């Protein structure tokens, strides 16, 4: 914590320490970790110098977990226990997953999110993703030589609340302090914008392994502002592989395949797709478990033909984003291409024709998202002095609302609203004497609730019996800077309240995450305690230092009693720092935090007032 951060410009804390912060691109096909070192962002490679980590996780019967190339190498041998493209399942129920019949897993339909039965037990997509993140965390810690202070994890701009929450949970489960969830196209825009000193209106066309995003941004000095975003979280390079796979099955007149053959041909399909980026024709050869040999050739014309509808499918969201932004194609200054799938020539052509200009390909489409995330992590960690940093304004991709009578959606916060955002709406009872109201929170643009994504249900109980329409229930939606929603409801005449952070129905409850973290650390208990003590001590000292410096500046905002309460709490924490009881230190730090709560808010208000006063004088 740093009360110091509200200090006036020029009085900011000395840059005495550089916090280790990373950006992580948790991709459908590949994942990367990057950081900013000596002012330049760089991807951190593994011990063999490979920058990418295939997003593949294999569970062994003995409980071993392999991640990356090792797991990828075994996917055709052990398809049931080797999970690829897990991102497609994040925050999704069984019925939401496309091509489920071609996925060689044993799915378990759990409430909220689909799970997969593996040799090592039933695993949720959150747990599987956390294995990927864990490998990246350890890679970064070894490479940077210390514990990470925080990480920015990227998500598709079009991810809904459930998918974002699942991603954040996976980060925490991997032992990361998630500073922010950042939209992938926005991350790319940061990297592109800073690298090229770009200013004006830009589109970012991001076709990844499993998701498609289009964002329109306004870039200017010190500011990245998302104007509109759209996309399809179920459309990506994987779908192009799938088309080739179906073509192979059709051409070879193959009978239903077993999981191994299915995975083998999916791998071959992907190889063919990649080959066609640079060649007019690609060979496809494979020996199936039945002994049958596949020997085909696919040319680029055929490939373009069977994937044409997919390419067209990306242009719908592009038009929608432009309309939402109130812009025409000619007003867009450039189109930045992101994601490995944009290497396909037919995509380049289609985007070029649509925008009537050559797409911008001067950054590595695989790395640009991770690099941008690293740059943002560096800012969020406080490593950049004010004036050299920038401001990022992002939007919510899909409208949020509640179900009303007749299964209809009432939108409360509209898509493309800048976050953080809050809005309240009033509802009333429709029966005499009604004492409870249930709320169904949904996300999406469609009018019928059934066509939107269900996020959570909760109930407000204890409304005193009144005539129908007399109760006044105020429902407040708050979306934070990660794009995550919390909802609360309050009956106004009685003050009866209920609230929910919209996660239990899709994400993991906090208690689950803590339990899993504990279990994973159990074999290294001593380590954990030592690490916790060291961390709490550093935090505690920082907190005391920050509090005292804040008091030096703004003591005047406090009454003598309030001042004494804060000083006492700080003294108590200082005392405990001498000891080795990490729990006591943590509690004392929390107590000091609570004691400074109101003080922090008042300092912030005072800061704003000073700023406003300064401007008014300046403009007179």
């Amino acid at each position, binding site marked *: *914590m*740093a*009360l110091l*951060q*509200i200090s006036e410009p020029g009085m900011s804390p000395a840059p005495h320490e550089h*916090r280790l912060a990373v950006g992580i691109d948790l991709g459908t096909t590949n994942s990367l970790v990057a950081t900013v070192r000596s002012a330049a962002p760089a991807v951190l490679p593994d011990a063999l110098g490979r920058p990418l980590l295939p997003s593949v996780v294999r569970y062994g019967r003995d409980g071993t977990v392999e991640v990356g190339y090792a797991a990828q190498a075994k996917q055709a041998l052990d398809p049931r226990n080797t999970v690829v493209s897990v991102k497609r399942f994040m925050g999704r129920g069984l019925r939401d997953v496309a091509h489920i019949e071609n996925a060689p897993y044993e799915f378990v339909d759990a409430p909220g999110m689909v799970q997969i039965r593996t040799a090592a037990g039933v695993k949720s997509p959150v747990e599987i993703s956390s294995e990927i993140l864990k490998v990246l965390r350890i890679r970064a810690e070894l490479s940077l030589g210390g514990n990470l*202070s*925080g990480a920015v994890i990227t998500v598709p701009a079009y991810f809904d609340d459930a998918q974002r929450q699942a991603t954040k949970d996976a980060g925490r489960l991997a032992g990361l302090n998630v*500073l*922010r969830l950042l939209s992938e196209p926005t991350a790319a825009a940061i990297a592109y914008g800073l690298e090229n000193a770009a200013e004006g209106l830009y589109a970012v066309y991001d076709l990844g392994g499993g998701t498609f995003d289009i964002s329109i941004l306004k870039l200017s000095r*010190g*500011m990245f502002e998302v104007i509109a975003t759209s996309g399809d979280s179920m459309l990506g390079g994987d779908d192009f592989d799938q088309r080739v796979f179906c073509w192979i099955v059709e051409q070879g007149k193959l009978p239903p395949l077993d999981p191994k053959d299915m995975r083998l041909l999916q791998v071959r399909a992907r190889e063919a797709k990649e080959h066609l980026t640079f060649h007019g024709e690609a060979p496809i050869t494979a020996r199936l478990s039945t002994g049958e040999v596949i020997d085909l050739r696919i040319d680029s014309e055929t490939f373009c033909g069977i994937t044409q509808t997919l390419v067209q499918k990306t242009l*719908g969201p592009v*038009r*929608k984003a432009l*309309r*939402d932004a109130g812009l025409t194609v000619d007003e867009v200054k450039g189109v930045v291409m992101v994601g490995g799938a944009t290497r396909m020539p037919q995509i380049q052509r289609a985007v070029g024709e649509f925008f009537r200009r050559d797409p911008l390909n001067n950054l590595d489409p695989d790395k640009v998202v991770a690099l941008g995330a690293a740059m*943002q992590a560096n*800012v*969020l*960690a*406080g490593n950049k002095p004010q004036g050299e940093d920038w*401001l*990022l*304004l992002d939007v919510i991709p899909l409208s949020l609302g509640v179900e009303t009578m007749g299964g209809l959606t009432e939108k409360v916060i509209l898509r493309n*609203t*800048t*976050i*953080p*955002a*809050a*809005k*309240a709406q009033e509802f009333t009872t429709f029966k005499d004497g009604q004492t409870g109201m249930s709320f169904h929170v949904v996300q999406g643009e469609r009018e019928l609730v059934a066509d939107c994504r269900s996020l959570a249900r909760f109930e407000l109980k204890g409304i005193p019996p009144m005539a129908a329409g007399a109760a006044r229930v105020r429902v*407040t939606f*708050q979306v*934070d*800077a990660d794009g995550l929603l919390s909802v609360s409801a309050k009956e106004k005449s009685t003050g009866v309240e209920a609230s929910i952070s919209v996660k239990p129905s899709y994400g993991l409850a906090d208690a689950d995450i803590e339990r899993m973290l504990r279990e994973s650390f159990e074999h290294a208990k001593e380590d954990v305690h030592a690490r916790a003590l060291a961390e709490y001590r550093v935090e505690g000292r920082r*907190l005391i230092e920050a509090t005292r410096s804040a008091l030096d500046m703004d003591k005047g905002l406090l009454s003598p009693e309030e001042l004494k309460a804060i000083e006492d709490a700080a003294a108590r924490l200082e005392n405990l720092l001498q000891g080795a009881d990490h729990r006591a230190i943590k509690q004392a730090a929390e107590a000091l*935090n*609570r004691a*400074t*709560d*109101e*003080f*922090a*808010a*008042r300092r*912030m*208000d005072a*800061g*704003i*007032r000073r*700023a*406003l006063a300064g*401007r*008014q004088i300046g*403009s007179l």
Partner: protein
Amino acid sequence: MNAGAARALTSSGLQNHFELFGLQAAFGIDSEVLEKGYREIQARVHPDRFAHAGDAERRASLQWTTRVNEAYRTLKDPVQRGRHLLELHGVDVAFETNTQMPTDFLMQQLELREELEAATAKKDPANLDRLRAGLSSAKKGLEKEIGAAIDDRHDYAGAAELVRKLMFLDRLDAEIDLAYEEIE
């Protein structure tokens, strides 16, 4: 506005959204000044500035930014700006309850909607483009009238009807968006 944002508003001693950006409370605003003011405040309060701070400041930052975003959104949009301004003058625009509109205006709206339906049925984006262009100039005209009614004549009741008209046009605009989607 939520409780936190409301607290941020009262404790800052601000009476309306305009003051937050150093603007006079008027319908005609300088969008550059608005944008500049928005950036200045965001630079101070945005959660990115407090990612590493304690819970108390992160909460205060969230409330302030929410409040600033709401104010900016309100002032940027002519209908919302008009509504806010009229509220400050004690006039409720009453979008929800007051649907009484002059007959000629309603007739004109009906005609425009028929045109929209025809263009949608014919899957004719050029017609939609034309409708939109016409609508956009109609909106500009109305905005001028609203500015004159509020800022020059202080005719707030008259302005309320004009703001309601503008809102009707906004709705038609949203329907044109849906029509484009349907055609595609």
